[in-house]
């Protein structure tokens, strides 16, 4: 089992991967026009966080299962989030016939 042996991958590399993934997600969330892709980018950011959680569960100061359990919770919450987000998207699409973020500007001055 993987849990038993020592892992040779340095934590730094994993954290760096997560950081890059997070930044890509952030960039996508800030620049994509399509609301679906914005949601997807947010999922990317959540995944980056998850990688960190699982990494620390294994390579942190006190290894344990807490990180993995927390990652599971994150996945659950992400599922809920995407469900509600897509429902909102559908409702918005029905009234505006568009999924573009730029069109959702009722709060403009």
């Amino acid at each position, binding site marked *: 089992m993987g849990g038993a042996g020592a892992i040779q991958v340095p934590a730094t590399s994993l954290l760096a991967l997560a950081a890059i993934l997070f930044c890509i997600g*952030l960039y996508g*969330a*800030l*620049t994509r026009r399509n609301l679906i892709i*914005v949601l997807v980018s947010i999922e990317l950011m959540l995944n980056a966080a998850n990688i960190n959680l699982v990494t620390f569960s294994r390579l942190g100061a006190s290894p344990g299962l807490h990180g993995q359990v927390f990652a599971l919770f994150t996945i659950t919450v992400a599922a809920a989030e995407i469900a509600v987000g897509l429902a909102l998207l559908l409702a918005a699409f029905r009234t505006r016939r568009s999924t573009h*973020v*730029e069109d*959702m*500007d*009722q*709060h*403009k*001055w």
Partner: protein
Amino acid sequence: MAAHAWLVPLLPLVAYVFLLVLGRRAPEWLVAGVSTALTFISFLLSLGVFRDAGQPATYTFPWLHVGSYTLEAGIQVTRLNALMLVVVSAVSTLVLLFSKGYMHGDERFAVFYQYLNLFVFSMLALVIAPNLLQLYIFWEMVGLCSYLLVGFWFFKPEAALAAKKSFIVTRIGDAGLFAGIIMLFLASGSFDVTTVLQAAANHQLHLGWISNDGLLVLTAILVFVGAVGKSAQFPLHVWLPDAMEGPTPVSALIHAATMVAAGVYLVARMYPLFAASQAALTTVAWIGGFTALLAALIALTQRDIKRVIAYSTISQLGYMMLGLGVGAYAAGVFHLFTHAFFKALLFLAAGSLIHALGTQDLFEMGGLRRKMPVTFWTFLAGALSLSGIFPFAGFWSKDDILAGALRHGHPALYAIGLVTAFCTAYYIFRAFFLAFAGPARDAEKHARAHEGGWVMTVPLVILGILATIAGFFNSPLNGYGLGKFLTPDLSLYQTGLGGYMAPERADVTVMLISVLVGLAGIALAAALYARPAAVDRIASEGKAEDIGPLYRLSYRKFYFDEIYYAVVVAPGKFIAAVVDGFDRYVVDGLVHLVRRIVYLAGLCLKYTQTGQVQAYGTVAAVALVVIIAIAMIRAGGVF
């Protein structure tokens, strides 16, 4: 029974809350029924309290702890308080019943009863308050109820103005009372009436900056100022006639029988304080006497029936003050007692007339004797009582006061009282003859006139009987029973007035003179207004022709309103205009400046609100990076 006296004010409060819950759409019979029934139970309870009244019984509980002083709330039943409970609850019950007929069909009928119940509660609670602060609270509450009820028809501008006037003018007196209460507290260390009075009677009031005797006079006068405001004595009498804009049952209850008598009650309650300083007593007596005469002179020429009775009330309250001031304590309170009945009766009878005719102008009435027999006879009883004709109630009490003034060495006040008595008999019978005798001066209104239902006639009859017989409670026939009942209240204190609170025997000469004077007044009124030959003269007076300067002086109420307007109101308005200008152009200018700056800032900044979520996100992300970078640099060791 005295321990249960708290129930007496509680029941009208229950009625008030009940009506409040019912709302203003409640059916009239329910509203009037509940109010009248509960107040009637209050009346029965207060009869029980009265029967058992003896030594002052105080029941209090600690209410507020302020510093080291514990303020107590509760009730105190003295003989005077018990008597007042009976008077107030009796008149209240009858007026509540009468209002059912008078206010029938008014769309705020339930609200009217709410206010009335609140008033009855406040008045009863005022009467049994054991300390001055509690007394003051309810003192203000009755003032508030008076305001609400005078302005009950607030859509009439006169009513709204009158309500405002009555509230503001009585406030002047209240300020004096409050100052007096504070000084008494500072000087005696307590609000408790018994403690304060004991200290006053023993000359133990102390304040650093004033001599003890001066302090007694000053506090007594300040308390008296409160009484002057509430009881509409000169120079604060101007509000009461205007308060007649309220519904007539209100005038009967508040502005004749109970609230205005609260001033007299206050002086009676604090009597040992007044008795401790001759100067204060003299002031009370002379203010009372002067007011009595002044109001009677004004009442001579008024053409509004309610105003006639209102000035009569002021005049009679002046009598009471005169009685208290000359040292005839029992006589003053006794007059309060009888006056409550016959004046409520006169007002209700006037209300019956107004209800039937739809006018308050005496010169539009006339010839109603056959049309409204119950009103006729009861009004007659009230008028005879007011005129002080044997054996009606007013005779005994008024005569007591006059005899007291003479006996205690105030012949001048006695003379004033006699003149007032003459005027009183004249003006009330002038009103009586104008309303009931002679031909109908307004045929159309006369044709419509009719007696009210039983809810209106029953209170009239009961009050008529009371106005006839109430005098016997303190007549020589039962050995001045009321006086003997009341005076033990005072013998608790070293008043120095002890023996002659109540007379020992009747003075037949004085009585005879009073009755003769009263009869003379009636005769003059009859000669001027009841003879068939007087019709033309009445018609010309009704059209306000051929009026001499003295008549005009009286008719214009000695120009008090005009003088007060010029001296008090106009400067006040001037100051208000200056302050208003300052507020409008300086304060508001600053406010507008600030508003404009904020508005401009908002105008510029609003363009940042593009509605684009991602733009906001970008700003947040950049800010996040900056914050993390700053944190890193501060932590050090990163680069």
